[in-house]
């Protein structure tokens, strides 16, 4: 019933996270109704993705050579924040509270899934640390057993004089209600409590 060309497009849309068959159909038909111009604009936008690569320095998305963050004059080039995915960099940038550099691992360790240290961007991390400019390494892997193990592994590999290794604090979300926080989060918040005065 649906022409094969449209069906092929629907199948591609349906592969996106959070998009089911129905939404994929709506997107495809909407594009069809928008005429040749809209389809062309989309085609060009998709084609331009081939210019995007990973920054050889940090592993974030870049268009040519190094990414915008690495090539910017960042305020604090002594802080290096390690994350799992490029999307995490965007999340930290949105906080506007971090002015250091990033390093994207490309995932977390999971021997069960065959993700061993050589599958992550660790060699380039060690090389950056070897240059000696970094004084604080902030490990911001995902708050999970796998993320924690990845941080522990890295911490064990990079211990060196003059390098302060830290990790993210954990607690209850801002604006959240305590009664709706899950037990694990509350427990971590309790364990990580701090004095009201001072730090």
């Amino acid at each position, binding site marked *: 019933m649906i022409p094969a060309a449209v069906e092929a497009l629907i199948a591609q849309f349906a592969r996106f996270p959070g998009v089911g068959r129905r939404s994929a159909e709506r997107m495809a038909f909407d594009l069809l109704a928008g005429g040749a111009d809209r389809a062309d604009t989309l085609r060009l936008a998709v084609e331009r993705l081939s210019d995007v690569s990973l920054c050889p320095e940090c592993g974030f998305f870049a268009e040519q050579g190094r990414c915008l963050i690495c090539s910017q004059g960042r305020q604090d080039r002594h802080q290096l924040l390690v994350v799992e995915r490029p999307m995490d960099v965007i999340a930290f940038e949105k906080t506007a509270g971090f002015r250091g550099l990033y390093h994207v691992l490309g995932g977390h*360790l999971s021997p069960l899934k065959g993700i061993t240290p050589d599958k992550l961007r660790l060699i380039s991390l060690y090389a950056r640390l070897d240059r000696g400019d970094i004084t604080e390494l902030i490990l911001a892997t995902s708050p999970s057993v796998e993320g924690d193990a990845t941080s522990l592994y890295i911490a064990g590999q990079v211990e060196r004089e003059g390098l302060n290794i830290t990790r993210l604090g954990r607690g209850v979300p801002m604006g959240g209600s305590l009664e709706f926080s899950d*037990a694990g989060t509350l427990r971590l918040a309790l364990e990580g409590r701090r004095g009201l005065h001072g730090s």
Partner: protein
Amino acid sequence: MASPGQSRQLPGTGPGILGESTAVGIERLGLRDFRLVRTADVDLAPGANLFVGENAQGKTTVLEAVSYLARGRSFRTARDRECLASAGDEVAPVASAEARFQRHGSRRLVRAAITPSGKTFWLDGKALKTVGELWGVLPIVTFLPDDLELVRGAPAERRLLLDALLAQVDPTGLAAMQSFNAALKQRNALIRDRASAAQFDAWEAQMAHWAARLLPRRQRLIERLGACVEQHVQVLSRGAERVAVTHDTGWPAASPIPALVTDGAKASALEEPLARAWREARDADQDRLFTRHGPHRGDLSLRINNRDARVYASQGQARTLALALRLGERELLEQITGEPPVLLLDDVLGELDRQRSEHFIRLLSRDGVQSLLTATDAAPLEAELPIAARFTVTGGTVRR
């Protein structure tokens, strides 16, 4: 409808910390294409609900559906697909069950759907992300014909009781157990891969972190469970038997871990010794291709008259102890949550002698205790126990 004023205080319990308790239990239970039952909608009574029928008519299916709603799994099988009703070669695409129940003064709705590709649960209309979120919402205790395995069977049988109890009363303990299990699987993968020591260090540190939080909680739970079980054995045997229920931590006696745990060491004091113990066990674990020690190998140690009950208990002693374990589980659930759990009894009262069944029936007759019982013959039960609602189960249909 019961109001808070109508409920009476249960002996030995305070009101639930979340407020005055009201009539507790399942009010309505529905099944669709669930194993032997094509369709059933049952209004349950607050006390004893008796399901009577010949074998293979669907009595146990009703209890099994409640087990799915309370724990996300069957007490009979780990193969969820068996729950899909079938006629000849035709298998239903989905088996579902739902229950409306009251706990801590609020009415809730839990729903389960099982398909060949997986299972989904909803609580008050909201889909749950993990089965773990279901645990503790509707606490149950099962009494099954093969409960003797609790005494005679492999450690896994007792660990299941222990894990189920922890999962229903201690969300922090459950989270620690799940995280520990996740890290353990990764270490076992490292063992198969002959990975580097640095990788072992990282995963063992995670295992130690979570085991150090799990073990003290399990220890305290077993101490409380043990006290309950010991009392029930006293009553059931009229003081003839003495039992001791203690924590087997899953480490050999020569290891420092068991003493640390039983002496009540805190998580912070356990983490380092645990990490060291796994580090030292690495070579031998690699030879055996799995992690030989840890909470995943933990057990309830059962001694009767100072001898290992697994090996030395007579048939009668084993029955007494198995029943006492379930009664202890029940009592502890009530103590901790402040409300009695729903009891599922699959054809068990007929098996008990007079002394054991009297004790049991006293408990089932108590105000506020809801139970679902199955039997092939109603008469002996009705003679001893006030039955609040009686259902006949034939050919997969349930009638009051």
